[in-house]
Structure formats: structure tokens, C-alpha cells
């Protein structure tokens, strides 16, 4: 069967032209494909190959033609046309019919009773728009970063005065009235209220609590700078007060990097005032002062989730720093892992997309091992000090220094893909990764990791790595927790139920293999 399509005056650069012919040639059942401009000689070629058909009669030199000989039983003209158009039509079709106003003012006219502005425009403009919104009594979630700290202070003061939320700048995660905003997982509604200054930390706690069967009343983000001296924890305090007053909330969870001393004090004062149990994970913060405030300190994000769940159920919270799996099983995994390693394989490679998850990993592993990072435990472990990658590395790839203008690695996996290329080699023993699901995140982060692993294995030939992963997600997330776990396990990864357990396992293996 021979067919031809003609695109009159349909121009495309030769690169695309070649792509087309190659794409189409690939289709099963296609014997021969010719693509070109309709010049006399090109048509002669078509003729000598007995591929000339009436469709080509009227072709002119400025028309593009594609002629194909193929086996009808295997492939249809539609397939060819589809493959053809896929390459040809690069035009983006215009958006949906519903009206998209140019300004906030007019948006408020078109959406009666709007009460939340989610803003992710460039930082230099974000403050002004947030200002307008607060004046209009809208709550604000600001994903934009690079906002001046003076502006943040001014906006948050206004918000507190008016009893509004001013989440951010640089706030990526919140769940208000059950609605996940920006980067958030689909978790059931429930009795736990959370205020978080750290995005993926918040996500980790919410998904684990969900997996344990509990849910959340409100999840409020504050943005990373909220607990600094300058901002003074305005939003965290505002959030705690709201959760204290909220009838739906029975247990309050706070998560953040260690606050400025003065802010820490304010928060403890406030916490003393409520009779609702409060769980606090100031990652690596001082446990004693938390206890003094009558709150529950935590060993990890997972521990925070478990304690909150216990408290909601009226059980006495017990610290958890073990594994779900029993010791025997863990030991077996460790043994197998160690057995796998060749003598040249000496180093850990932690490639994280979530900031707080990286933080947790480094805080734990850094105690017993020399872990180099862009957010090191101690200055002498700064990644810049490590020569030609001869050491253990654990990176937060979400930092601008790595994304180089690309979207955050949770949205676009390319950055981590590149680091698999540049940082995984014969000397790599253990690969430690996080996989963050939920709205906002990439459609298939697990798949991206699996792909990178396959490539890396191909590169190093005879040997294999120990791959340890954890998935921050739920069965109701668009990407689906179980599907992601399956993808990773098929790619030969050991998938642990939490980042904390993944990190713990890595620690065991490193010790056992004396890395």
C-alpha cells in the first residue's frame, strides 16, 4: 500500500522534516518513507521508487510532501498522519473558554466571595499583589520567593491585624479546609492541625499520619523565614492561636527548622496556654525546652506524625526510632546490600528533591559519618571542600545553585537526572533518594528515578548499587503511592515507609559495610 500526504505551503525546518521521516519510518509495517519539498527531482525519486500516487500530482516546490509504502495489515494511514502531525503541529492551542481576567480587582468581580489568593508570580511584583489582596480581606499563600524581608514583615503584620493568613513568601505547602494548595498531598480530613515552616517536612508528616489512618483539620504554611528574628514567628503564632480556637482541631503539630531563640521562647509561652496536646519537631532542636513547655519533642518527621496520631487516639505517645519491619528482616536486607558491594564502591550519594527531608537525612547520618552537602551539618563538610567527589555526599537539589533557572526538581526531574549522570559512578555504593508525590509535583517522579537508575547501571557495567528510597505520598495522590512504590521496587530500590527509616537503614548499611 502506498499513500502520500501533501501540506501546501506547510513549512518546517529540515530538522523537523528529518524527525518526521525517522519517526514515521519507525512505525511497524512501514517499508519506506520519503519526506521533502515537492521539487521535480524529489518527485522523480518518488517515481523511481514506485511510490508516486495521484495525491502528488499537484505538488509544487513549496509544498511539503510525505510519501510512504507500508503494510496495511500492520499500520494505517491514520497512524502515519498521526506520527506526521505529532512532529508538524507545534502550535499551542488557545486556552479554555472561561474568562481569565488580567487583574486581581476584576478577578474578585468574576469570583464572588473569593477568600484566598495563591500567588506565584516573580518576587519583585508579588508583594504589591499580596498587599492588594490583604486590603481586600483575602488570605494569601505566596509561593513566590525573592521577596524582601521588610515586605514580608509589613504584609504579615497587616495580615495579623486583620486576622488573615499570610502564608509565605516561599511557602509551598498548605491544606486549608481540606483543599491542598500548591505542593500538597491528598490526605483525609481529621483532628490534627499543623503549622509548618518547611514544605516537604509538612508533606512527610501529613502523609504518614494519613497512612496511619488519621487526618487533618488545617495545614498552615508560614514560609521558611517566619521564625527568624526579624519576622518573629508572626504567622506561626497566628496559626497556633487559630488552631487553639478551632473546634475541629484536637492535636497541634508544629514543624520547622530551629527557630531564633527569641521566637522559640514566644512559641513556648503560647503553647503553655493551651490544653490541646502540642507536638513539636524543630528538626534538631533542643528537646528539653520543648518538654518544659509541656509539648512533645520528636526524633523525626515520622516520629512527629506517629505521636500526633497516638495523641488523637488518646494513647500515650512513644518515641519511635526503629523500623516497621522486624529486626531479622532488616538484618537480612543489610546483609544482602553489603554482599552486593564491590571493594571500589565506597561512597553514599543522597540525591534529594525535598529540603526538609535532606535536612533530616544529614542531621541523622552526619552524627556517625562524614557527609558532604550544600547544607552541611558543620562548615567543614561543605560540598565545596570535597575534592573530586571522594566522599559521602547528600544534596538538597531544590536549592537555586543546582536548579540553574530550571523549575524545582519536584516539578521537573531534570536536575536530579543530571546529578545521576554526574555523581553516580563505579565508586558509588549507596544511592539515597526521596520521591515526593501530591498536587504540584511531577506526574511520575518514581518513573524518572527508575530511568536514571537504569542509565547509571548501564554506565558502571558489572556492578550494582544499593538503592534506598522513601515515597512521600498517599494512595489518593494523583500519582498514587502504591504505583510509585511498585515502579521503584521494579527498578531494584529498597523502598522504606518513611524518610527517617530510609535514612536509618542507610546508616546501618554504611556501618555494616564499614563505609
Amino acid at each position, binding site marked *: 500500500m502506498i499513500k502520500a500526504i501533501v501540506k501546501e505551503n506547510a513549512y518546517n525546518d529540515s530538522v523537523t522534516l528529518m524527525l518526521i521521516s525517522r519517526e514515521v519510518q519507525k512505525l511497524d509495517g512501514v517499508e519506506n518513507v520519503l519526506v521533502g519539498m515537492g521539487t521535480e527531482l524529489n518527485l522523480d525519486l518518488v517515481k523511481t521508487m514506485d511510490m508516486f500516487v495521484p495525491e502528488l500530482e499537484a505538488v509544487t516546490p513549496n509544498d511539503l510532501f510525505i510519501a510512504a509504502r507500508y503494510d496495511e495489515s500492520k499500520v494505517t494511514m491514520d497512524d502515519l498522519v498521526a506520527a506526521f502531525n505529532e512532529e508538524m503541529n507545534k502550535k499551542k492551542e488557545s486556552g479554555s473558554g472561561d474568562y481569565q481576567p*488580567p487583574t486581581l480587582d476584576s478577578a474578585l468581580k*468574576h469570583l464572588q466571595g473569593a477568600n484566598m489568593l495563591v500567588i506565584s508570580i516573580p518576587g519583585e511584583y508579588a508583594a504589591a499583589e499580596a498587599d492588594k489582596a490583604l486590603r481586600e480581606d483575602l488570605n494569601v499563600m505566596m509561593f513566590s520567593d525573592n521577596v524582601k524581608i521588610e515586605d514580608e514583615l509589613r504584609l504579615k503584620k497587616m495580615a495579623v491585624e486583620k486576622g488573615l493568613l499570610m502564608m509565605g513568601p516561599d511557602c509551598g505547602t498548605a491544606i486549608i479546609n481540606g*483543599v491542598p494548595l500548591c505542593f500538597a498531598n491528598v490526605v483525609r480530613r481529621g483532628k490534627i492541625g499543623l503549622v509548618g515552616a518547611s514544605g516537604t517536612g509538612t508533606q512527610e508528616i501529613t502523609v504518614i499520619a494519613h497512612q496511619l489512618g488519621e487526618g487533618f483539620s488545617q495545614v498552615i504554611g508560614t514560609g521558611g523565614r517566619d521564625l527568624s528574628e526579624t519576622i518573629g514567628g508572626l504567622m506561626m503564632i497566628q496559626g497556633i492561636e487559630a488552631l487553639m480556637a478551632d473546634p475541629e482541631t484536637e492535636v497541634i503539630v508544629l514543624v520547622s527548622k530551629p527557630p531564633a531563640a527569641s521566637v522559640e521562647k514566644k512559641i513556648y509561652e503560647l503553647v503553655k496556654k493551651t490544653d490541646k496536646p502540642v507536638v513539636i519537631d524543630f528538626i534538631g532542636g533542643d528537646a528539653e525546652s520543648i518538654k518544659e513547655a509541656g509539648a512533645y519533642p520528636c526524633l523525626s518527621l515520622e516520629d512527629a506524625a506517629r505521636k500526633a496520631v497516638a495523641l488523637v487516639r488518646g494513647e500515650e505517645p512513644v518515641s519511635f526510632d526503629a523500623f516497621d519491619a522486624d529486626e531479622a528482616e532488616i538484618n537480612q536486607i543489610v546483609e544482602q546490600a553489603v554482599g552486593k558491594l564491590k571493594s571500589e564502591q565506597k561512597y553514599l550519594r543522597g540525591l534529594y528533591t525535598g529540603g526538609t527531608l535532606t535536612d533530616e537525612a544529614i542531621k541523622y547520618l552526619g552524627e556517625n559519618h562524614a557527609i558532604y552537602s550544600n547544607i552541611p551539618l558543620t562548615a567543614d563538610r561543605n560540598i565545596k571542600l570535597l575534592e573530586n567527589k571522594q566522599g559521602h555526599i547528600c544534596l538538597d537539589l531544590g536549592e537555586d545553585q543546582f536548579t540553574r533557572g530550571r523549575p524545582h526538581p519536584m516539578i521537573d526531574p531534570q536536575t536530579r537526572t543530571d546529578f545521576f549522570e554526574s555523581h553516580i559512578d563505579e565508586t558509588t555504593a549507596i544511592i539515597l533518594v526521596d520521591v515526593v508525590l501530591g498536587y504540584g509535583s511531577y506526574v511520575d517522579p518514581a518513573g524518572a528515578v527508575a530511568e536514571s537508575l537504569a542509565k547509571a547501571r548501564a554506565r558502571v557495567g558489572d556492578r550494582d548499587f544499593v538503592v534506598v528510597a522513601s515515597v512521600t505520598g498517599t494512595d489518593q495522590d494523583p500519582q498514587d503511592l502504591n504505583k510509585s512504590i511498585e515502579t521503584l521496587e521494579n527498578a531494584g530500590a529498597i523502598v522504606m515507609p518513611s524518610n527517617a527509616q530510609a535514612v536509618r537503614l542507610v546508616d546501618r548499611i554504611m556501618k555494616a559495610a564499614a563505609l
Partner: protein
Amino acid sequence: MSLNDLFAKELKVVNMGLESFYDDLKKQDVSAIHVQWKPSAGGDKKMSSLLGRLKGLK
């Protein structure tokens, strides 16, 4: 007004910036609207400063 008023209401979101955030909300049938945001005067510094002066700014 206090935050707890918000907790009692249906969340209605105005999204400004990344359209994917808006799409996610639509998928969940959250009532939301997307702003085709442009910087004032399309980012033309001179024009936006003129506009600023008419608003009585600096």
C-alpha cells in the same frame, strides 16, 4: 475577623502565576479563577512609574 471564620467557609481561590496550580484546583472542583497576570504596563518601568505617580505613590 479571625482565621476561624475562614475555616468555616468554602475556600474560593484566585490563582495568580503558575497556571498548573489553577488546573489542580479545577480538577478537584474547587471554585477558582486564574488571573492572566501581567506586570503593570507590561513591565514597562517608565509607564508603571507614571501610573504610580497618579496613584500618589512616591
